[in-house]
C-alpha cells in the first residue's frame, strides 16, 4: 500500500520505488580521476593557447544618463591578462579591439553584459542599413566605437532592433542572460570578407569585413572564463543582423563545441532567387561583400547565387540537433525594401515589387522552412516582432513569439 504523500512531496514508497530504479543500474566504469584531470588540463592548455593580443577594454558602467539609471564611468586599459578573468559586474562593458574594423577602417569593438551565474549567454548581431549604393551607404553607419556605444546606451528612442538596452531591459526574456552584442559596423550584414571594396558612386574604399569581425569577437570570447560551459548559447539577430546570424551560425556553433547553440532570427528572410530575390542581387552580395561559404557548409554556394536561398536547409542538414527559430513578417515594408532597393548590376525592375508578391513569397518561405527538422517558424503580422516581444510591447503575435523563444532558446 502506498503511503499518503506529505504536503507537496513524494510519499516514501514512491520515492523508494524511484530510487530502486537506479540502485541496481549497471553503470559504465568511471574513468580514473587522473584521466579526468588529464583531459581537463589538455583542454585548459588549448584554451589558453588562443589568448589573443592586447585589446583595450573600455568599461562602461551604466549610469544616470543611461536608460538604466546610473553614472557612466569609462575606464581604459589593456585586457590581455585581465580579460581572462574579468570582473563580474551588472553593467555593460565595451571592448575596443584593433581586430574589429568599421566600414571606414577605424577600429571598433563589441559590448558584453555579464551577470553572476547566468544560465544562458546570448550573442546578438546588431542591425543596420546595408551599403550597396550611395543612397544605402549614406544610411549605414561607417564607424562605431566606445563613443557611439555610449550615445546608444543613453538613448531611449530610435533604437535599432535588439539594442542592448532592449535585450537587458526588464521585460526582456533575456534579462537574466549574459549578453554579447556585436554592432553592425560594416554595412555588409555581417557577411563580408573583403577589404578596400568599392561601391559604385561612393568614393571611399569600404571595409566589408563583417564575418571577420564576428570571428574576431569569438576569438576574444575564448579568453573569458565567464563563458561557462554550463551555459546554453543563443545566436540571435534581426534584419541585417538576422541574415548575419544565419551566415555565421556554423562558425559560432563550432566555437562552442559540445554546447547547445540555438539560433533565433527575425525579419531576415532569405528567399530562393526569383521575382523577390533576384539573381543579380544575390550575385551583388557575393561579389561586393566577398561572400564565401561558411566553414563546413555544403559546397553548393560556390556554384552560384541560387544557393543563398537554400541556407535554411543547409543549416538543418549540417546541424540537425540544433534548435532554430525563424520569424517571418509577410507585411513588413522595411524588409521588403531590402529586396526593392536599386542594386548595382541589377537592371531596374519593370515595376515596383508588389506587397502581395512579397507576402506570398514570405508565406511560401515560412511554409517551406517549417518543414525542416531543426526549424520552428512563426508568421508575424508585423515587422520587428521579436524586438517588440523583448520590450514587452503587446502585439498580435507576441504570445507566439514568446512560445517560440521558449521552444528554441530557453
Amino acid at each position, binding site marked *: 500500500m502506498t503511503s499518503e504523500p506529505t504536503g507537496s512531496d513524494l510519499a516514501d514508497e*514512491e520515492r523508494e520505488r524511484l*530510487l530502486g530504479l537506479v540502485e541496481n*543500474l549497471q553503470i559504465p566504469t568511471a574513468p580514473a*580521476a587522473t584521466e579526468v584531470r588529464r583531459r*581537463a588540463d589538455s583542454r585548459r592548455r588549448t584554451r589558453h593557447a588562443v589568448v589573443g593580443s592586447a585589446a583595450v577594454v573600455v568599461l562602461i558602467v551604466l549610469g544616470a544618463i543611461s536608460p538604466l539609471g546610473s553614472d557612466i564611468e569609462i575606464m581604459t586599459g589593456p585586457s590581455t591578462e585581465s580579460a581572462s578573468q574579468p570582473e563580474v559586474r551588472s553593467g555593460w562593458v565595451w571592448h575596443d579591439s584593433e581586430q574589429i574594423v568599421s566600414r571606414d577602417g577605424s577600429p571598433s569593438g563589441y559590448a558584453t553584459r555579464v551577470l553572476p551565474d547566468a544560465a544562458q549567454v546570448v550573442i546578438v548581431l546588431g542591425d543596420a542599413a546595408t551599403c550597396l549604393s550611395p543612397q544605402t551607404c549614406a544610411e549605414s553607419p561607417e564607424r562605431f566605437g566606445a563613443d557611439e556605444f555610449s550615445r546608444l546606451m543613453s538613448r531611449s528612442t530610435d533604437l535599432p532592433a535588439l539594442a542592448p538596452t532592449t535585450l537587458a531591459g526588464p521585460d526582456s526574456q533575456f534579462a537574466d542572460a549574459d549578453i554579447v552584442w556585436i554592432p553592425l559596423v560594416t554595412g555588409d550584414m555581417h557577411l563580408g570578407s573583403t577589404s578596400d571594396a568599392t561601391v559604385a558612386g561612393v568614393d571611399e574604399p569600404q571595409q566589408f569585413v563583417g564575418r571577420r569581425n564576428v570571428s574576431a569577437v569569438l576569438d576574444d570570447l575564448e579568453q573569458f572564463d565567464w563563458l*561557462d560551459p554550463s551555459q546554453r548559447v543563443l545566436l540571435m539577430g534581426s534584419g541585417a543582423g538576422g541574415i548575419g546570424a544565419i551566415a555565421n551560425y556554423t562558425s559560432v556553433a563550432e566555437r562552442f563545441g*559540445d554546447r547547445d547553440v540555438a539560433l533565433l532570427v527575425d525579419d531576415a528572410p532569405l528567399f530562393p532567387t526569383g521575382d523577390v530575390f533576384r539573381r543579380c542581387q544575390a550575385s551583388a552580395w557575393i561579389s561586393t561583400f566577398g561572400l564565401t561559404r561558411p566553414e563546413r557548409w555544403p559546397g553548393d554556394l560556390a556554384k552560384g547565387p541560387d544557393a543563398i536561398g537554400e541556407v535554411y536547409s543547409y543549416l538543418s542538414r549540417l546541424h540537425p540537433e540544433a534548435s532554430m527559430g525563424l520569424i517571418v513578417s509577410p507585411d513588413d515594408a522595411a524588409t521588403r525594401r531590402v529586396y526593392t532597393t536599386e542594386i548595382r548590376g541589377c537592371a531596374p525592375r519593370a515595376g515596383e515589387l508588389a506587397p502581395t508578391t512579397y507576402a506570398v513569397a514570405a508565406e511560401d518561405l515560412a511554409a517551406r522552412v517549417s518543414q525542416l*527538422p531543426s526549424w520552428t517558424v512563426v508568421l508575424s503580422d508585423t515587422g520587428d516582432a521579436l524586438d517588440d516581444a523583448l520590450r514587452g510591447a503587446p502585439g498580435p503575435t507576441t504570445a507566439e513569439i514568446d512560445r517560440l523563444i521558449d521552444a528554441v532558446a530557453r
Partner: protein
Amino acid sequence: MVIGDRDFETWYRDERTRLVRTLTVACGGDVDLAADAADEAMVRACERWSRVRHMDSPAAWTYRTALNVVRRRHRRRTIEERLLRRVAAGADHQAEDHSTELWSVVAELDHRDRAAIALRYVAGLSEAQVAEALGMSTGGASSVLSRARAQLRHALTSGEVPVDQ
C-alpha cells in the same frame, strides 16, 4: 552542498555515481548516455575547478552542464533515429536491470519534468539547487516539480501517464 577545500578527486569519487544515476532517470533510462554526459560534465568541472569548488553548489553546476550535454546528444540521437526510420522507443538504450513498467512511466514524462524529479529525488538536491541546475527561478522549479510529482504519482497509481503533460 558546500565542499570547502576538498580536492577534485574526492568530490569526483563521491559524486560520479550519483550523477550517473540521476542523469539516467533524467534520460528516461539511457544509462550509457547518462554516463557519457556525466563524464563530460566532470571533465568540464575539473577544467574550471578553481571556480566550481567555491560555488554554493558545485553539484548543481555539474548537473546543469551534464543536462546540457544530454539534451544536445539526445536531440542528435532522436534525429538520427528519425532519419533512419527507427522506432524511437528507447528500448535499445534503456538500462537493463530495472522495472520496465516503472521506467516506461519515467520515460513518458516531459524531459524537464523528468530532470526535475531526478535532481530532487535521486540527486537529493534542494528545490533551490534544482532551480539552479535547470536554469530557472525557484518558483518555476517548484511549479515544475509539483506538476511532475502529480504526473508521476498518477502514473504510479493508475499505471498510465496523463495526456495533458
